[in-house]
């Protein structure tokens, strides 16, 4: 408890430092000298880190030339930099071109000769062919439009033996994979995501969360009668809160659990997220009981398996690499630039981040600092297998942030590949990576034994000979002493 308090205190301090940092920084990207972020050491200490991202722009609906936004809820950026913004309260989709210029507004489509609109849509997705998929929550359907805005497909009233009689389909978020299969997160569904074939038929549920329950509740349930039990709340898996899909077709999802709140699902729905970081990739590891754990509301997968999660309760965006190492954090709840009231969606625009605030109806643009760029580049090079470049970039990173422990492991791995085992051992030790250390130690040991084989063998032989001579000498001197010793 005391430890928790201490952590919280240090957290508050950091938060204060963060406030100070952003206010002093003045919103100029590249002001690396402003301390303002944090990271966790292997031992769980909160250590300071330079800011990797800084807020530079705040865009409201009027700035975009589209009138005030009303409870916007989702955001999608295509590979060529077009931004699709779902203005839920106004039932429209804004498409922004380069430089955040309003390109067009999509608020209706033609269906069977009639114009139809959206009703409180909650989620959207854009495929590689620029097809717009909207989870039209109020109309209980998913609408798919082609790049000219013509209707291509409507998915409504799915029927299947898996679905209960009178099932009400209310899609909230949606993604589409490369094979045009659609994954829908629907409200009130506990069995995972709903998977639809390219023709729009419901095929199955995928990736249900595990059921978690309180031991106390379980005890009560065991002690109750059947009649009492039927009155109680059922233990059901938690619902997902958001999802995203990466280039290889893996689903990344967040849910409302305290642990295992981030999942990476393969085609079978199994969780294959690597959790090799010092702590689980689920936001802050320390929190006060009043504030509760992170409430994750969005996840965004970037290139090279990097992904970011958005904690709505503290307004922070945490970014992890593919192994689950915590890279950096930014954001917060507040009234200044770079802080939010009710953040709801995050997405990457190239190197930059866009964060959408539902309550304020504003889009915040975060740009990398030099530190952030270097670290991103290091992780990317390592992912590509470009050891030389990774080594260089990690070196530069630790020059800017000596506290970033997993970077030492990156250097160690590069040195190991280059054959400098002794040096790489030191780096692995620095990042508390026993496996890496052991790997380079084995090679180092082999190298040493091989290069000094002659010396080692001569010493061993000399010692053996010396011992034999010593014994002979003792025996020759007389058995009396030996006999006394053995008595």
């Amino acid at each position, binding site marked *: 408890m005391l430890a928790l308090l201490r952590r919280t205190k240090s957290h508050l301090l950091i938060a204060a430092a963060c406030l100070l940092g952003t206010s002093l920084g003045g919103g100029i990207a590249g002001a690396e000298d402003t301390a303002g972020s944090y990271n966790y050491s292997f*031992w769980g200490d909160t250590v300071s880190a330079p800011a990797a991202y800084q807020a530079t722009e705040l865009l409201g609906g009027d700035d975009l030339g589209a009138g005030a936004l009303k409870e916007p809820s989702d955001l999608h950026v295509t590979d060529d930099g077009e931004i699709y913004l779902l203005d839920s309260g106004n039932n429209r989709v804004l498409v922004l071109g380069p430089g955040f210029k309003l390109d067009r507004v999509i608020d209706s489509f033609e269906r069977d000769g009639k114009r139809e609109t959206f009703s409180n849509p909650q989620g959207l997705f854009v495929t590689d062919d620029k097809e717009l998929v909207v989870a039209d929550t109020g109309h209980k359907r998913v609408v798919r439009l082609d790049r000219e805005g013509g209707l291509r497909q409507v998915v409504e009233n799915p029927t299947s033996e898996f679905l209960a009689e009178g099932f009400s389909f209310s899609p909230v978020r949606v993604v589409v994979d490369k094979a045009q299969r659609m994954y829908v997160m629907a409200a009130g569904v506990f069995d995972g995501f709903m998977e639809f074939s390219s023709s729009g038929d419901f095929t199955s549920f995928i990736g249900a969360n595990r059921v978690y329950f309180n031991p106390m509740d379980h005890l009560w349930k065991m002690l109750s009668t059947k009649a009492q039990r039927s009155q109680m709340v059922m233990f059901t898996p938690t619902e997902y809160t958001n999802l995203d899909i990466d280039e290889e077709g893996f689903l990344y999802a967040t849910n409302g659990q305290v642990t295992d709140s981030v999942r990476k699902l393969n085609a079978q729905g199994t969780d294959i997220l690597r959790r090799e970081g010092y702590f689980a990739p689920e936001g802050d590891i320390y929190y006060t009981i009043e504030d509760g754990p992170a409430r994750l509301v969005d996840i965004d997968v970037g290139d090279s398996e990097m992904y970011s999660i958005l904690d709505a309760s503290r307004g922070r965006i945490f970014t992890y690499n593919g192994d689950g190492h915590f890279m950096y954090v930014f954001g917060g709840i507040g009234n200044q630039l770079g802080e939010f009231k009710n953040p709801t969606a995050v997405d990457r625009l190239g190197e930059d981040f866009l964060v959408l605030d539902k309550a304020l109806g504003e889009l915040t643009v975060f740009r990398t600092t030099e530190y952030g760029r270097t670290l991103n580049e290091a992780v990317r090079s390592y992912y590509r297998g470009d050891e030389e470049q990774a080594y260089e970039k990690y070196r530069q990173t630790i020059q800017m942030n000596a506290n970033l422990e997993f970077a030492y492991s990156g250097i160690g791995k590069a040195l190991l590949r280059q054959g400098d085992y002794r040096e790489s051992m030191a780096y692995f030790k620095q990042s508390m990576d*026993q496996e890496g250390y*052991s790997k380079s130690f084995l090679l180092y040991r082999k190298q040493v034994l091989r290069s000094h084989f002659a010396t080692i063998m001569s010493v061993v032989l000399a010692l053996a000979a010396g011992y034999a001579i010593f014994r002979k000498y003792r025996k020759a001197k007389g058995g009396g002493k030996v006999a006394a010793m053995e008595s």
Partner: protein
Amino acid sequence: MRQWNREALRYPFYVILHPFNGYWDLKYERSRRLNLILSLAILCLLALTNILQTQYSGFVVNLVYPDSINSLMEIVYVFVPVLFWCVANWSLTTLMDGEGKFRDIFASTCFALAPLVVIHFPWIWLSNVISLQEVPFYRFSTSVALLWSAFLLFVGNMTVHQYSPMKTIGMIILTLVAMGFMAFLCLLFFSLIQQIVSFVSIIYQEIALRG
């Protein structure tokens, strides 16, 4: 004199390798002074081993938070439990027809800890030249050392008090319970003392400030 030293050094090894004969010798044949010196030496070596272990064990077996290393506490962790054990054991066996005197109990307990030193000490250095795949050997050796010590403690207690095996096991369990009681009483005692001290100091403060 040289002869004597040599033998004194061999004696603990004889005890841990031939516990039944060794403990008999320890109780009836050996000089008290030698037993006491050797016992204290073993305890000191054990404390030293533990200290060196946290500091110098290899990285693959030793992840220790630097701030938590405290050599004084390592010494306390060796001496206090041994003293607790001996006092508890003595208190119980005196009532239960045990033939051991306190010095026998102390010596037998300390000699029983010798395998911990003998096995752990070389592993401090060996653990620096092993990889993760060889760590099971390390874990195995340390477990063997613990089991060996437990066995010696058992045989020592049995021989020193001239108990039957079942009675010894019963006494060991009772001793552990008694140690718990002692720890509880100590805590109670210290917290009471603390209360009294603070009470007196407050009274003094009150008088000094008002007078």
